[in-house]
């Protein structure tokens, strides 16, 4: 592939193209909201994906304590769970978040990087079911739990 034809955004990839999580995360975190948040690739496996959200002053929700706002946590989990779907079906399928529920166990410790682990536990032709946790160092002591669904908008998962 020539330099000129290299995709600049995840969504420049044709639907159904082979999903490479590390490469896709690089594309996703270069622009837009994910880029501004500073999201980074952390790890992945079949059906799961981890992204990192480094702490930053600009992302604070409680200035007195330095605790991160909940918005960046939702975005982290939206992106990590979204990519976990492609990490399960093995291809890039454009989709939209239908719903997302976030339970906040506790505030993330100021200064610590938050890791978002998304997992896709069921695929149908058009709906994917996801869950995940966010933690700031110890996966056994999560900051948040999430669950939700996505819908394929172009093509099908299966």
């Amino acid at each position, binding site marked *: 592939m020539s330099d000129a034809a290299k995709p600049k*955004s*995840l*969504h420049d990839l044709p639907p159904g193209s082979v999903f490479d999580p590390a490469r896709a995360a690089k594309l996703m975190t270069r*622009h*837009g*909201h*994910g*880029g*501004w948040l500073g999201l980074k690739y952390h790890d992945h496996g079949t059906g799961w994906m981890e992204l990192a959200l480094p702490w930053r*002053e*600009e*992302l*604070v*929700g*409680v*200035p007195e304590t330095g605790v*991160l*706002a*909940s*918005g*960046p946590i*939702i*975005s*982290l*989990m*939206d*992106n990590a769970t979204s990519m976990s779907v492609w990490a399960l079906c093995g291809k890039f399928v*454009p989709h*939209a*978040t*239908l*719903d*997302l*529920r*976030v*339970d*906040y166990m506790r505030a993330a410790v100021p200064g610590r990087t938050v890791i978002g682990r998304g997992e896709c536990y069921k695929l149908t032709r058009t709906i994917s079911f996801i869950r995940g946790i966010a933690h700031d160092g110890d996966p056994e002591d999560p900051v948040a739990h999430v669950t939700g669904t996505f819908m394929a908008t172009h093509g099908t998962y299966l």
Partner: protein
Amino acid sequence: MSTIGSTLPPYATALGIHIDREEDGMPVLAVDFSDRMMGRPGFLHGGAMSGLMEMAAVAALRAEMERRGETMRLKPVNVQVEFMRGGTQQVTYALGNVTRAGRRVALVNAEAWQDDRKKPIALAQMKILLSPVDGE
């Protein structure tokens, strides 16, 4: 413009979220479309939309507490967000509505819309724990 619902945190101001106006004493938040708010090309990021609605929910609850003359510490318990339409490249508004605020916990709904108020792009329902600031 009064500062009903208190000031917004760094996260909100960095995204350009601001108080646009008041409706029945509740703050209507607004944010311009920008690269920082974008998910897939040309569309609002779902997380950014959720962040906006959470800010609106908290601002509405603070306004309600102010009206009651109470100062409470707010701690989010959970949020459920429904995405109904893709957000496009225009101003997005959000308004919270306090469904129930007791002594210990509050349930607040929030809605986000763009050019057509009757066609919300997303809904959020948030549960928030209340505790007195003096720690009684």
